[in-house]
């Protein structure tokens, strides 16, 4: 049989497509739409990793430096003293402020007396 261009086009058009396996649709959907979101995103992992590395490096610096802990403690105490955080008045007013804030947060606002009329 001699095949002409039109014959070939007709035969190609009539050629059935390969039948995909029955579970392919479900597999695709499971890999895309129904794929559970990852618990931790990769950028979050990188961020936490960077912080941990930084913290480890700083700790190592502190531990390895001579008299580092004593110097750190004296610096922190000096800063607290100079800013007045160790003064008993500051501590008292901070306690009052925190108590007031907590007390206000516990208050419940009464409901409006306005009612919605229903037919």
């Amino acid at each position: 049989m001699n095949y002409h261009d039109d014959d070939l086009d007709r035969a190609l058009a009539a050629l059935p497509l390969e039948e995909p396996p029955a579970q392919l649709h479900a597999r695709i959907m499971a890999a895309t739409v129904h794929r559970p979101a990852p618990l931790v995103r990769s950028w979050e992992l990188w961020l936490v990793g960077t912080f941990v590395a930084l913290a480890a490096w700083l700790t190592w610096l502190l531990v390895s430096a001579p008299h580092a802990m004593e110097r750190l403690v004296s610096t922190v105490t000096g800063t607290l003293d100079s800013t007045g955080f160790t003064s008993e008045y500051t501590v008292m007013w901070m306690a009052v402020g925190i108590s007031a804030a907590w007390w206000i947060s516990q208050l419940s606002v009464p409901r409006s007396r306005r009612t919605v009329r229903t037919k």
Partner: protein
Amino acid sequence: MGAALAVDPPLAAPVVDDQALIAATLAGRGDAFGELVTRYERAVYHLAVRTLHDRTEAEDATQEAFFKAYRALNTFRPGAKFSTWIFTICYRSCCDRLTKRKRLSGDELPDRADPSAGPEALAERSDEAQRLRAAIDELPEKYRTVITLYHLQGKQYEEIATVLNLPLGTVKTHLFRAKEQLRKVLSV
């Protein structure tokens, strides 16, 4: 005044175009992507089978193509054809697999066609579709892919050129030669 529906209405059954389905998917409608998969999975799978000559690998390539498309759906250019896009992704995935296969085998690849597609088997096949399919399988890879896309997309040469990342002239030449070889084989 009627209350707004809390539940999304089902997608209108017959003619929702691909662009609307993509927009709905991006808006969080998983069923819209499901509809896109239903529309194109067969064609994508067909392209993968014809290119890779391995049904298991073709299945994986099809899944990979849809997975990549889903992840990159927000980069899909409005106005472009989804079919061309998904075929391009699938074809690239198949090319990667073929390259990997070549690397593993170390030498020129024997096509992993099904064993029944040899010349003897070809002669035995009486049915026209089977003969044609076997003849396509016998074509060199570059011609086979062009003829497969021609089969899938019709006479949209520019779309075929986009998928294969080839100049339009090359696509037409490949198609001409592929048809010539097919005619030769089928006329025997």
